């Protein structure tokens, strides 16, 4: 209990630090969004003071002391008020993020978890049946598949299964004719669209989990408590799962936390390739269009997701490893 509380405290503290940094960074940078816009216009000729005033009025210029701005900012963050997007004017940043986030979380997040579970199981099997085909096949296959660059696998799948065979749609998260709701037809449509991006992520990340789990599992299989469990005549399955795998998974949880934290921020490439309307695609759009409010909100979301993922893994550790509870 004390362990959980201390982890919650740590989470709140880092959250506050992240939010504050997110507030400070744009203000520490030279110039302002308005300056950037004016500089762009100035390339085509002099900018009149009235144009400047109009742009500043549109973007908003901070008023009040830094402290007041900070409090205002905190208040806005608590109410999910991140202002208005430049690119998708007049839509609010919050609504844009709210639309994009579920797509990313469901697609990338779900596939990351599935890849971890599946890869870990295969790794356990490979180590337990070391030297047999159950070992060779996943190990060699995993190494081979994860050696491909992410986008290249994606392009291969798109080309062969999308264009050539025409089995799967090549872009988007759902058919252009469908309207997002929770009907069975729409969900099936979304699932159909997610198969190619999901497969890409699975192919490229599975190998890492297999290899990681296999090597830690081989180490724990050599540990004395495994030998002792065998000497005591425990059932081989009990030895493999409760004694060896249960301990071997612990170091891999850290990598799992990193992978989970990277879900929101790391989805850019796959969503760009598949035109998938998630956070990564939104971030790409924001950066290309210099949409500062959108960017700032997305950075905050990415930071928070990393913090939350680490928090979850910390709690998992507390449950799985009695040594961390003390």
């Amino acid at each position, binding site marked *: 209990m004390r362990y959980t509380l201390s982890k919650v405290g740590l989470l709140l503290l880092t959250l506050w630090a992240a939010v504050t940094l997110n507030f400070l960074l744009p203000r520490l940078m030279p110039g302002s969004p308005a300056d950037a816009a004016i500089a762009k216009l100035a390339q085509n000729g002099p900018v009149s003071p009235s144009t400047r005033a109009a742009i500043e009025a549109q973007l908003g210029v901070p008023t009040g002391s830094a402290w007041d701005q900070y409090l205002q900012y905190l208040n806005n963050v608590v109410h999910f008020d991140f202002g208005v997007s430049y690119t998708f004017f007049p839509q609010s940043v919050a609504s844009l993020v709210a639309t994009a986030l579920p797509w990313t979380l469901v697609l990338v997040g779900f596939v990351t978890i599935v890849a971890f579970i599946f890869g870990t199981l295969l790794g356990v099997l490979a180590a337990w049946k070391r030297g047999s085909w159950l070992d060779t096949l996943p190990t060699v296959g995993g190494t081979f598949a994860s050696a491909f660059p992410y986008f290249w696998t994606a392009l291969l799948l798109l080309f062969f299964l999308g264009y050539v065979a025409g089995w799967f749609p090549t872009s988007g998260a759902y058919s252009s004719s469908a309207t997002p709701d929770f009907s069975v037809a729409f969900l099936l449509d979304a699932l159909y669209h997610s198969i190619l991006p999901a497969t890409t992520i699975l192919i490229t990340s599975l190998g890492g989990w297999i290899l990681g789990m296999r090597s830690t599992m081989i180490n724990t299989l050599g*540990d*004395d*408590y495994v*030998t*002792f*469990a*065998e*000497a*005591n*005549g*425990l*059932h*081989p399955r*009990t030895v493999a799962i*409760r*004694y060896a795998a*249960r*301990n071997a998974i*612990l170091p891999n949880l850290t990598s799992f936390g990193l992978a989970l934290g990277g879900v929101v921020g790391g989805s850019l490439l796959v969503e760009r390739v598949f035109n998938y309307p998630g956070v990564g695609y939104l971030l790409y759009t924001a950066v290309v269009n210099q949409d500062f409010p959108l960017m700032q909100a997305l950075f905050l979301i990415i930071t928070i997701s990393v913090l939350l993922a680490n928090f979850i893994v910390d709690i998992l550790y507390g449950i*799985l*490893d*009695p*040594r961390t509870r*003390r």
Partner: protein
Amino acid sequence: MSLVSVQGLFVVYEPQGALPVPAVRNVSFDLEQGDFVGLVGESGSGKSTLGFALTGLSKPPARVSAGSILFDGVDIAGMTPAQLRVQRHGGFAMVLQSGMNALNPVRSIRDHFFDIFTAHGHVSKRDREARAIELVGKVELPASVLDRFSGELSGGMRQRVSIALALSLEPRLMVFDEPTTALDVLVQHAVMDTIRELQKSEKFTAVLISHDLGMVLEVTERVMVMHDGLVVEDALAAEILAAPQHPYTRMLLSHYGDPRAAVVEVPGLAARGGDRATDVAVAAAGNAPVTVTGDTLDTLEPVAAPAAPPASTVRRREGRAAREAIVVTNVSKIYQRPSRGEEPVCAVNNVSFTLEPGASMALVGASGSGKSTIAKLITGVERPTSGSITFGDLQIDTIKRRQLKRLHTEVQMVFQDPYAALNPLHTVEYILTRPILNFSRLRGRDARARVLELLETVGLTPVEQFAARLPHQLSGGQRQRVVIARALASDPQVIIADEPVSMLDVSLRAGVLALLDSLRETWGVSMLYITHDLLSARLVTDQIMVLNSGAVVEEGRTADVLQNPQDEYTIRLLEAIPHPTVGGLVQS
């Protein structure tokens, strides 16, 4: 019919891509119900391999290649793993060497018991809690231990738990593989007592595997001595003690001694006269300043040290004998616990002593007594919480980073584990060249000459061959000699040896100890010898300090203290040493 009958057993190691190595060769013996048999040998003798084969635990690359192991008339050597598994209840159990690690760190002790009960189904769900409590009670642990995880238990408690777990199988044969080696001296004694009592009360057949012939002779009725895969001697303990037949057994026996005896010696290490009231080795080294550390200065008879190179080959250091004393005054070291609310640990409590130039002093105590912390404080690795440590004009307790190099030129460490102290990727020459370049002005050919000189000093000849070797090509004793040579590279005045022989086989110990001793005689270095082994302390030191929980409980001349211990803790340490025949071995 015998409970166990081993006939013509061969076990080979078949590593992939390498030639098979026989580990156990043509071993035959019988064990009767209720026997308590010792299996003794040095590392690599095949004793553990045999123990694993006896309990059906041989795993690749080890393989039983010939012969049979009849357990209650059934050959277990040819059984499949599934058949073996069923045999383990009411059959054979094993307690591993490192009982510390024999428990799953993420399962509670209770789960360990329940796993075994579930696997064999010999204890019903209703009775299993009571049975687990009964079993931990047998190894003198409270029932509350069942709620714990292995990380929360001490080494001795963990080993007791694994004994209880093995016992829960209701075995007829129990194999104990070095059950107390990883434990602290005093705990070793207590755990061994428990094993003995259990063997009497539960009446299982027991095989005690150990490198420690002294302990085995004390505990068991019958002893098998293994050497190089062969059982070279198999006789009653009393017979082995009275008239060992095989030269190897005689060699092993000769390395035992009672540190309390009036005269203590082992082959390669002559006795330090128990009555000699001095320990001025520097005088023997020649032109060094004569320093008296004892009360009187007698003429020393030169101590023969056959394992060390002849004195003529060792270049004596001209005027480089130890000149300065290490003075430790009222030193304490308190470690703050990482988490709040826990009491800080006082590792060293108000310790004062002086290591005179050229003297040899032992620092003894059980683990946790603070002896290694003192080594860290003297070498400037850690700072004392209070008190002062000086070496000549160096104030070690407040030493600056820049002065550390000067300190380390004069004060060098020899570490406990020669297997971990050498970088496996570098040759001996490279390992020895580094400190020479760091600490001296010798370069190029001169540095190489110095490397060869050091190797000669520590008795690794032919020196050219040894210089080119990698650590894994050396035996444990040879590695420890390299470690010692490395410590000598800076031409230090003081050597701090932290359990330098505890990882070595008995037969190698004397050689390394003799080397350390001879260095002191011929080079005039002072030595602080840290150990829990009172016999070796008696052999190589003149002064002794006994530490308990960070405080000095007794100090004086080694021979006096060990012959007439005053403090209860010293007495307990002495009593924990196995003594098959109190003092009887020493005279042989």
